[in-house]
């Protein structure tokens, strides 16, 4: 009886818990190695990512191809915004905001 009650509770926890790590890991895995990841700030509502590289063409590829693909294959992502794009000492830094479905529920 105890085991059965516990199994029900475990299933309940697993079905209700958020998969934030999986979401972050999926997004980071899609960023090519040529980019250096400067910072990651993730919560259930959004993921703010800052990546840098010294190649502008890589940014073109990232924004026109990779990021839209990430948005398509990750249903939890509702919108993706560019929060900043700066250039400092020859390197470019891009700030991205991935807003999730949880943002709408708030």
């Amino acid at each position, binding site marked *: 009886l105890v085991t*059965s009650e*516990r199994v029900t509770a475990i299933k309940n926890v*697993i079905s209700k818990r*958020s998969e934030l*790590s999986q979401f972050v890991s999926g997004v980071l895995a899609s960023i090519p190695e040529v980019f250096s990841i400067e910072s*990651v700030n993730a919560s259930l509502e959004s993921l703010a990512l800052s990546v840098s590289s010294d190649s502008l063409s890589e940014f073109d590829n990232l924004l026109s191809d990779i990021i839209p693909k990430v948005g398509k294959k990750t249903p939890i992502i509702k919108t993706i915004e560019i929060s900043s794009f700066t250039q400092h000492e020859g390197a470019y830094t891009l700030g991205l905001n991935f807003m999730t479905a949880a943002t709408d529920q708030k």
Partner: protein
Amino acid sequence: MRKYENFYLKYKRLLLPVLFAALAVFMVFFVIFPQISSISNLSNDISAASERVQTLKVSLDTIASQNEAELDSKLSTATDALPTVKDISRIFSTLNSAAAASNTSLREFSLEVGGVHGKAAEVTGDLPTAPSMSVVARVEGDIRSLSEFGMALSRKFPLSEVSKIDGSGDTASFQIAFFYKPVNMSMIAEKDNVSALSPADSEFLNKINLENNK
């Protein structure tokens, strides 16, 4: 007065039968009927009791047919996944194990234990969701590996949920909720019907145990 006397004399011979008839009616309504009703209630009680005995017999057979070692192992897996108490040492060990699995290192962690005694510590087992203990862990490593730390954590026991990740450079802090659930013995004691763990549930426990040991 004469009128009553005449009436009495006229119906004198009927007095006794009427008295007996009234007594019989009284007996039927106030003695026999309640007895019949109580017999019916008693029979219902007997039927419920025999049903309960039958259930207990089935439960006893189920218990007797179980492999004790296997049962202990399943219970151990279930309580490892969802401990019955706030187990700080197990949480520390899980954090270290997840760090090792993701090639990162655990720098520090802090726990928000909450109530440990008295009303604040009272958590009943019949909550719809399992309560959790909040932990903040600071982990060091390559930022791409840091996200793997959270993935490793989600596979490990006790069950946890990462609700926030803040990382820059080579460190990241994770806000994690570790779940636990006290056993509600009173609720379990009320149940007579003991059934064996379904094959699907056994398979589920094996699966999460395998994930934990990865």
